[in-house]
């Protein structure tokens, strides 16, 4: 049975396909080393065109207009460049009102694609370009520690990790963020203070990792100039032990945050990567199948957030106290209790 999987791995090989939302230009080569923020491909996402009516501009018929056009399809233009000219008693010219490129000439019209600042696709994780995806992007491969989160504010950056939490539930206070943290990536259990966000932005942090935050902070989180990743959820849920352990033992290491929001249609999730030297680490599996002995997290109340190990997959359907009959597993929680949980409410935790 295919089950969602969350990776919290101290050492693994990660391959990430980084693609433009539409065709563009790939600007890296295979084998090239990249940082998380390096641009690997560019594309114009919001094209803008200008249609020049040459026939009207020169005061000639549509069929005659083509004869006065001095440019060709594909020509680059600067603002004010002459596109068409009619000489005679009264000279007339049609100039380009924009900088760009001629993409079409038809029936006395010239269509110019305006020069645009393209969207730049960043590598997202530091690593090596393993494969090029023609016109769309590349596969980046790297080795290191990988922690997947559940929410991100859409930014990408990297820096040196500073752990501010002694316990997974420790709250980030505005007063903790001072000038000594400039350029750091901070880790804390939770944060309820918009002031802490403001201080973090003022001190030019490079990233923030939290177990959780109240959902009303989402607008403030989206305005942050650096990536913010939640590992566990909304509210004041402490950070899960595996992520906390991994991060709190990585103090002062380089760390990269790709806080792309979770997208169920593409499977993209926010991710934290701590690069480590390459070795023979196994590639993190992407398709989870629920089996006995696996570590899992319960995603729904009661026991929401609890971790445990699958003792057995129960045959058929199990009747639950609320009257539902569902496929289920017997799970031994870390606290010792053994419970029955619908398999739909479990996520595999790939951690060691």
């Amino acid at each position: 049975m295919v089950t969602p999987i969350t990776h919290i791995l101290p050492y693994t090989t990660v391959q990430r396909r980084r693609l433009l939302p539409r065709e563009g230009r790939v600007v890296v080569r295979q084998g090239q080393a990249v940082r998380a923020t390096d641009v690997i491909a560019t594309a114009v996402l919001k094209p803008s065109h200008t249609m020049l009516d040459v026939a009207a501009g020169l005061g000639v018929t549509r069929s005659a207009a083509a004869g006065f056009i001095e440019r060709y399809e594909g020509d680059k233009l600067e603002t004010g460049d002459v596109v068409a000219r009619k000489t005679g008693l009264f000279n007339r010219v049609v100039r380009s009102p924009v900088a760009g490129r001629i993409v079409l000439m038809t029936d006395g019209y010239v269509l110019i694609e305006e020069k645009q600042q393209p969207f730049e696709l960043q590598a997202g994780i530091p690593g090596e370009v393993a494969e090029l995806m023609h016109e769309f992007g590349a596969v980046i491969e790297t080795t290191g520690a990988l922690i997947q989160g559940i929410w991100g504010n859409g930014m990408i950056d990297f820096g040196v990790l500073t752990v501010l939490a002694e316990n997974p539930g420790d709250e980030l206070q505005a007063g903790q963020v001072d000038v000594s943290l400039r350029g750091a990536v901070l880790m804390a259990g939770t944060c309820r203070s918009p002031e802490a966000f403001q201080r973090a932005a003022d001190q030019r942090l490079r990233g923030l990792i939290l177990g959780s935050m109240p959902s009303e902070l989402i607008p403030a989180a989206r305005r942050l100039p650096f990536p913010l990743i939640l590992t566990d959820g909304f509210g004041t849920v402490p950070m899960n032990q595996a992520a906390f352990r991994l991060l709190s033992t990585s103090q002062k290491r380089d760390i990269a945050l790709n806080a792309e929001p979770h997208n169920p249609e593409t499977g993209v999730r926010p991710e934290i990567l701590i690069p480590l030297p390459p070795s023979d680490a196994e590639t993190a599996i992407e398709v989870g199948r629920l089996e006995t002995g696996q570590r899992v997290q319960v995603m729904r109340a009661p026991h929401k957030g609890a971790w445990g190990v699958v003792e057995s997959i129960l045959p058929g359907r199990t009747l639950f106290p609320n009257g539902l009959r569902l496929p289920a597993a017997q799970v031994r929680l870390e606290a010792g209790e053994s419970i029955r949980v619908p398999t739909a409410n479990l996520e595999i935790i790939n951690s060691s």
Partner: protein
Amino acid sequence: MATSLVDADTLLAIDVGTMMTRAFFFDAVASSYRFVALGEAPSTYGPPLNDASEGIRAAIDDLQSKTGRTFVNDDEMLISPALANGIGVDTVAATVSAVPPLRILAAGLLDDISVQSARNLASTIYAEIVDSISMNDRRKLSEKIDEILRQRPDLIIVAGGSENGASRSVIKLLDPIGLACYLMPERQRPTVLFAGNSGVAAEVRDALNALAIVATAPNLRPTLESEQLGPAEGELRSLFRKIHSARNPGLGELDAWTSGRLLPGATGFGRMIRFISKNDHRKAVLGVDVGASSTVIAAAHKGDLRQRIYSRLGVGQGLEGMLRQASLARIAGWLPFAASESTVRDYILDKLAHPHTIPMTAEDAAMELALAREVIRGAMLDMRTHIPATFPELRGGLLPAVEPLIVSGSVLAGAPNPGLAMLAILDALEPAGVTVVLADVNNLLPSLGAAAEINGILPVQVLESGVLKSLGTVIAPIGNARTGTLILRIRAALPSGEERKIDVKQGMLTTIPLEVGQRAELHLQPLLRYDVGLGGPGRGGTLKVVGGQMGVVIDARGRPLDLPDDRAKRLSTVQKWYAVMTSK
């Protein structure tokens, strides 16, 4: 309807949903088609597999283990038609609702006529309108081109020009479309469906053939006054099927199994609602299917189906739309416990991160039903504008007089507590008069609708076998009295021989227990010209009812439902309703 089966074919129906893939098996039992068994597995349409095949095969495996029959061979290939020894299956039908909505650009001459018709056509499949272009669009040609390039629609529906009507302006409409297609990479160009003046169809093909795949369909507006979607719907479905089959290998395979008859689940659902509406012409039929990523509302009267698909509005992934549109305070207001807006927002965000999960506590179940209420209310707000005046109604502004009212989707039809599901349905839809609420507990209707294409008798007989479970009969008197006023007297002759008298007061919500399948006779005597749907205001009569899970529900809370603004009063009101509906 008694129909004998001379040569009964077995049928396997596959439904690929956002969360679950289901495999239904139908066979003839005692000369009549019956739904035999259901196999289920989590869908694999989306990431990480992005291939529906594994979910389909796992659902078939589950079905095989439940029926002891074999449908696929050792190579997991479907055995169809069935072999002489009974292995395999004779016919296959399939539906899909897991797909993301097609991005559609609607083009037409006039915004409120042909463009609206193009929009209406789009709403018969899982679709979202990303832009529209019309003659009265004041944007420059280059701006229209830019918008098409930005939006990258999957499909462009071009309507406009009545038969023997406008032609030049229809061709002019194609300028930005053709130019935008020219500027796009070939493999990303949209398909164009022309459903306008048939007199210019050939010219449209000539103009666009080199730039895009062009399909044509009968005119959506043969005259200015009349809209005719039906004939074009088939062509649109065919494009839907081709586009999605090409994108997901599993769907492509499923389409091949069905010989190109893969259907949007909503279409199958709508077909069945239309079919049921032909039984009783006095009332309309309403179908509400609340899925994880979309909601479908289908209303039909005498075979006239009006259906809208609300893509990206559902109780799973579709909650993203709720987060933007719905008032969190209103959602919290349906809960039987005090909850802040941020609690509701946290819940929605958690659900969005883990849409496959199932509520297991009473609090979570109440939250899901509160979300479902707002999903349905949001959809109905729009749906009401598409229900024609020909549909019967007790009073303007209310839900048409419907019977039955059919609900589908696990949040309502699969809710563990039928009383709370019924309460959510009443709160969200506010039916008027008398109706029976049926639940499609196995999500069978889409598959039956798809099966109808290859076996017309099967859906009829399966429906007659009672696959829709009754939640109960609802009596909702309509009038204008103050809360606490006596508005209706009911004398109930129960199957036990007992006679029970109930005085119904305005504002009351109560139930008369009546076990599933048991029959009772209710004599209704409305007072103060209240209307219970028995022929007009003040008219009463005898009603023969059949019991459901909630028996008979008397909902005299008034229409429209008026909840107190004060939080504490509202909470206490909702708690009272919860108590009534869970006290069975």
